[in-house]
């Protein structure tokens, strides 16, 4: 039917339109700030897409965002705004690191999965706290997860700087102080790199760019989530709970239990967020382990309109902006902050166009009704 195809087309058009709008708004901003937007965008694109090392970087940057976007999107499907992916992934990464540095002599096929399982379990337990508070004590998850993020930060600081700090670091005499980090990981826990695979596609990514196994894992997980929402009863129960909790309860869906499951699933996925960096790039859990992936995940999920498969291009776009930002900073001396502003504008544009398109769609769908 023609009407239905049009609707489908509009659904896909929504994020594209919002990105274009954001680019236009960003251009205006650059003009005001005294830069040539044409030149900036051209550099951003050619630098990001014209070189093998850039492609590699985009894939590397996109990997944690993929997991973070999925973690947020899954929770949002059931009406839970999980702001706590931030704290959950840091806790998860630490648990993974613990398995990484405390076990020795295991083969890689066992050690890495163990570390991954520990990360997911740790993150899930950290998510259990706000889940319990929400479902059995009525504390709104936005409040509890924001506050628990701070608790996670401090807890990690204590664990890394006090409890597990590696005090046997070899420092050449007179050359600085020891790093605040855990002992080094066992070599077996390192994530296999994808360079060989990428070379098959003609991409010769330099060794120092750590794109690794977690990227295909993330894509598989996205497909898995899509399958969950499209082909299993639980997926539909989650959607019903999120969009109409009263009706869901009246038809015999145990709304609380569904939300608990979803929150824990979101937490478990959150545990994977930091691992591509942790086991692909770092050799220990450092106090300066990268932050903010959890918050970026909210933007990634928003741009994807909560669609698990949409998270893939959305995460790649954010990776591209990150890499492109590095490019324009190096070649045009445009500050990185401009790219951050662009990201912010993009999120606003997405929120606005999505709303507008949703209303348009609804009217259209009403039109096709009886």
């Amino acid at each position: 039917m023609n009407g239905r195809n049009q609707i489908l087309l509009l659904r896909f058009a929504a994020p594209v339109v919002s990105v274009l709008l954001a680019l236009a708004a960003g251009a205006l901003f650059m003009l005001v700030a005294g830069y040539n937007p044409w030149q900036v965008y051209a550099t951003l694109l050619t630098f990001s897409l014209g070189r093998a090392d850039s492609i590699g970087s985009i894939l590397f940057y996109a990997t944690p965002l993929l997991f973070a976007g999925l973690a947020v999107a899954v929770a949002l499907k059931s009406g839970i705004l999980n702001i706590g992916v931030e704290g959950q992934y840091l806790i998860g990464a630490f648990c993974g690191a613990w398995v990484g540095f405390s076990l020795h002599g295991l083969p890689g096929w066992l050690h890495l999965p163990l570390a991954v399982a520990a990360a997911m379990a740790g993150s899930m337990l950290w998510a259990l706290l706000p889940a319990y508070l929400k479902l059995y004590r009525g504390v709104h998850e936005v409040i509890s997860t924001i506050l628990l993020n701070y608790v996670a930060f401090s807890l990690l600081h204590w664990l890394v700087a006090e409890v597990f700090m590696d005090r046997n670091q070899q420092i050449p005499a007179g050359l600085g102080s020891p790093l605040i980090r855990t002992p080094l990981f066992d070599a077996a826990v390192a994530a296999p790199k994808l360079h060989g695979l990428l070379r098959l596609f003609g991409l010769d990514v330099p060794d120092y760019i750590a794109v690794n196994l977690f990227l295909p894992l993330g894509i598989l997980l996205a497909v898995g989530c899509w399958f969950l929402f499209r082909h299993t009863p639980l997926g539909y129960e989650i959607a019903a709970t999120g969009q109409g909790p009263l009706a869901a309860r009246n038809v015999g869906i145990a709304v609380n239990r569904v939300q608990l499951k979803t929150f824990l699933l979101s937490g478990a996925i959150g545990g994977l967020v930091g691992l591509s960096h942790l086991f692909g790039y770092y050799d220990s859990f450092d106090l300066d382990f990268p932050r903010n992936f959890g918050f970026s995940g909210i933007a990634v999920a928003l741009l994807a309109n909560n669609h698990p498969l949409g998270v893939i291009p959305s995460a790649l776009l954010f990776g591209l902006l990150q890499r492109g930002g590095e490019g324009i900073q190096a070649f045009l001396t445009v500050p990185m902050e401009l790219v951050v502003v662009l990201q912010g504008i993009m999120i606003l544009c997405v929120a606005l166009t999505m709303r507008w398109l949703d209303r348009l769609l609804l009217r259209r769908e009403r039109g096709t009704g009886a």
Partner: protein
Amino acid sequence: MQIRPVIEFRGVGKRFAGIAANEDISFAVNQGAVHAVVGENGAGKTTLMNLLAGLYRPDAGNILVRGEPVDFHGPQAAHHAGIGMVHQHFMLVERFTILQNILLSCESSYGLLPQLQARQKVSAICRRLGLTLDLDATVETLPVGLRQRVEIVKLLYRGGDILIFDEPTAVLTPGETADLLELLRSMSQQGKTILYVSHKLSEVLAIADTVSVLRQGRLVGTVGAAETTQGQLVEMMIGRSLTPSAERQTVTAGPLLLALNAVHCRDGRRAKALQGLSLQIRGGEIYGVVGVSGNGQQELTGVVTGEIAPTGGAVKLAGDNIAGMSMPKVRNLGVGLIPEDRDRQGLVGALPVWENMLLGQLRLPQFCHRGILSGAACRNYVAEQVRRFGIRLASIDQPVCSLSGGNRQKVILARELGRQPRVLVASQPVRGLDIGAAEMVHAQMMAAREAGAAVLLISADLDEVLELADRVGVLYAGRIVREFRPGELSPVEIGHYMLGGGQAVKPQ
């Protein structure tokens, strides 16, 4: 009665987003007449009245008041022309006294002296109408019927002599309705012109001099109330005659399916809501519950469906105590629900029709193998139900909120009856539906009864209950205070029990 049109609609039209809510409507209302405007939901009655009351402006045509064309730029302008409207939802400040509420509507009545004069004026109005109102009582202490009086006095105080009533009896008990009709009659005798919007034809024929019938935004005709019948009006309203309701099948009462025994429970604010409620329903029986809303209707639904755990007493489903069981468990034991607020409690608007029809049933083995849904089985089942229940839609993938109200209710019915429940709880099942859809809903409830289900019908519409139910219970203060069979009590007697008169009776 003078024969001078005080209001004249001439070719009035109003469109919203391109859709005609009113089109080319012309009729005249005589001074001192009670003129009823009837039609189904969505026929354009309320739009037309809002045009007259200055809330909207017409796109086409003219409205003449006392022979002069008017163009109201807002409700204030209509007030100055003496036109006032009693809305379905009262515009009163609950914490204020009656007098304060009446003064609130007039800018010029602040200060001591005006207040004294105002009190006299209000008292005079009440006297003229034979109303007894304690002007210093706060509105929150008043029953609904009296609040409506306050609205009426408010309009009269402001100098209104053309009064519009939008479905005024929807919130009233039968006794209150009779009083209101009496009041309208006396106001019309005093020269006030009354526009009466309703879909309750018995009331309309009892009170109106003239009836204008709207259908799909157009005027079907204006007839004298004395020269028409309910059947003719229905035919004008829906464009066909109503199929005579199927002969009521005598169903031999089945086993006792639902029994509530001295059930107590508290409401959301922890106040006592049910206080020893007892009732029994057999298979093949429709048990109607009537009562003023807020006397425990929601809690009664809640304890039967498992939403609320009673604090005392037993709820037995075919002999098994289900009090305190979770909603999913109760539902699996065979309790179906047609909820009061169908859009929020019964459907997930943004999700497609097929998902709504299978909501909560996707785990059944016929739809799901080893945790994975069988799309074809789901779609076939839904398509079959759509056909059986005559749901009009373009596709089972369209969001359920894009269907009309009647079709949305049919989706719920198809879902609930498709599970062949032993007990069906139906709360306000036809509220807001047009006549055709209501007919269909009632037919399906009768079919459930014939199939041997126990139906608990909770409704604010006494006529509906008296027509459908085998037995009726009057709910007052969290208890069934009187049980009877339709025809045993007059509406006035029923109203008496609804307001707390009479003793509690034990069900047989």
